[in-house]
């Protein structure tokens, strides 16, 4: 399905995650963040960049890994993206929701 985000038609899945990363840009991120009541600061962007790099390198993402990343600790990760930080931050970063591995 498609959704208009920041004035563009963007392909998303049923939960609102981008299905084509090439459609992602900073404005898209800003608008998804706004929907989640988050105003993106420099710290947010550092985390988003980290998530995108890890995803590009096919590293499975988990809260534990992010806590050990030296980019952000878990406490701050929650403060930046309250309530389910991994779900929210990946949506803003335009990458798939991490499969919480079985």
């Amino acid at each position, binding site marked *: 399905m498609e959704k208009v985000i920041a004035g563009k038609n963007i392909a998303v899945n049923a939960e609102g995650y981008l299905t084509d990363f090439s459609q992602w840009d900073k404005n898209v991120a800003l608008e998804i963040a706004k929907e989640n009541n988050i105003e993106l600061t420099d710290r947010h962007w550092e985390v988003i960049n980290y998530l995108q790099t890890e995803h590009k390198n096919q590293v*499975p993402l*988990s*809260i*534990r*890994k992010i806590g*050990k990343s030296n980019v952000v600790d*878990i*406490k701050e*990760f*929650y403060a930046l993206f*309250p*309530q*389910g930080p991994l*779900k929210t931050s990946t949506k803003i970063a335009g990458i798939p929701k991490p*499969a*919480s*591995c*079985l």
Partner: protein
Amino acid sequence: MKQILILGAGTAGTMMANHLRHELKKPDWEIKIIDERVEHHYQPGYLFLPFDIYEPDDIIKTIEEFIPKGVQLIKGKIDKIVPGENKVQMADGGSHSYDVLIVATGAKTAPEETEGMFGDEWYKSIFDFYTFEGSLALRNKLRDWEGGKMLVHIVEMPIKCPVAPLEFAFLADSFFQHKKMRDKVEITFVTPLSGAFTKPKATEALDHLLKDKGIHIESDFAVERIDQENKKLIDYGGRELDFDLLVTVPTNKGDEMIGRSGMGDDLNYIPTNKGSLQSLAHKNIFVIGDASNIPASKAGSVAHFEAEILTENIKRFINNEPLKEEFDGHANCFIETGHGKALLIDFNYSHEPVEGTFPFPGVGPLRLLKESRMNHMGKLAFRWIYWNMLLKGTHIPFVSATMQEAGKEF
């Protein structure tokens, strides 16, 4: 004579010993299996022990009785694997060399990973049921517990048997009703996931069941620490949950020996090819069951399906043929829902659990993703199948190693 070495004589290792003894000719191949323990536990039984449904005798046998003739069982503690030298170093100073190594050392709970889990309240008001000791201590507690706030809690994924915590909550509901004290117990299911399970359709069905049974759910809960003194479970977002009885599933990790060998990821799981089960770092090392990092459930049924495919791949490896990348993540799990009923789910890497019939398309007799008494009978029968067929590597009739799509409502 060439050597196949299997590390770990639990579910997966024992199955491989039986398969390989059957498939490989004796003068050419010597098969050894190493484990430091004496007992083989039927781990799914840990779920039933706290509710006095099973007795310890029902779930404990010896390792030895399931190791076939012609396979040498070595009792001892493994220090580490030295892949560069194709040998396994033992804690007592000895060593065993191998041509092919199969790692089946499983996963264990690591309560020390959560701040405040160990302490005075451990096995007083805080219990796990993923170990025999924890499960038994919990049984003794439940026998005369007078009620209050009970939390059934998962620290983080992945865990062994990801449906077991839910089953525990369902069985607790049933147990307290039988004891005519359900009104005295508030049951809350606390999970780091966004719902009851990891897959959408099953989550929908299971969320519904939780609601029907009056079990509350606290989702997206990532525990930071346990406050033993005030009996609170506290998450990174600052959410606090009070408890009188905390039943927790601690972080699960691969064996420490994997860490000592420098072969694991941050949870001591070995990076493994998810289709062939070959270690990514070493061609003559294969990984089966909970010890690998593949994105399949950590469950006995998965190890069983893997064993059929791994046996074929070991034969191919020995004959210098290309490996089959055939494992599809197939899992098949009964979910006890209490009151003599159960659900059944059947799924793989690409297909989530859906409704349907199993194992015969359109016939059953088991129903997928629906509560039924027949499914519960299946779960109870499974203990017999485990001891008498599964460990011995006997093929279970009509159930294939890769998932069947017929009879399912995708």
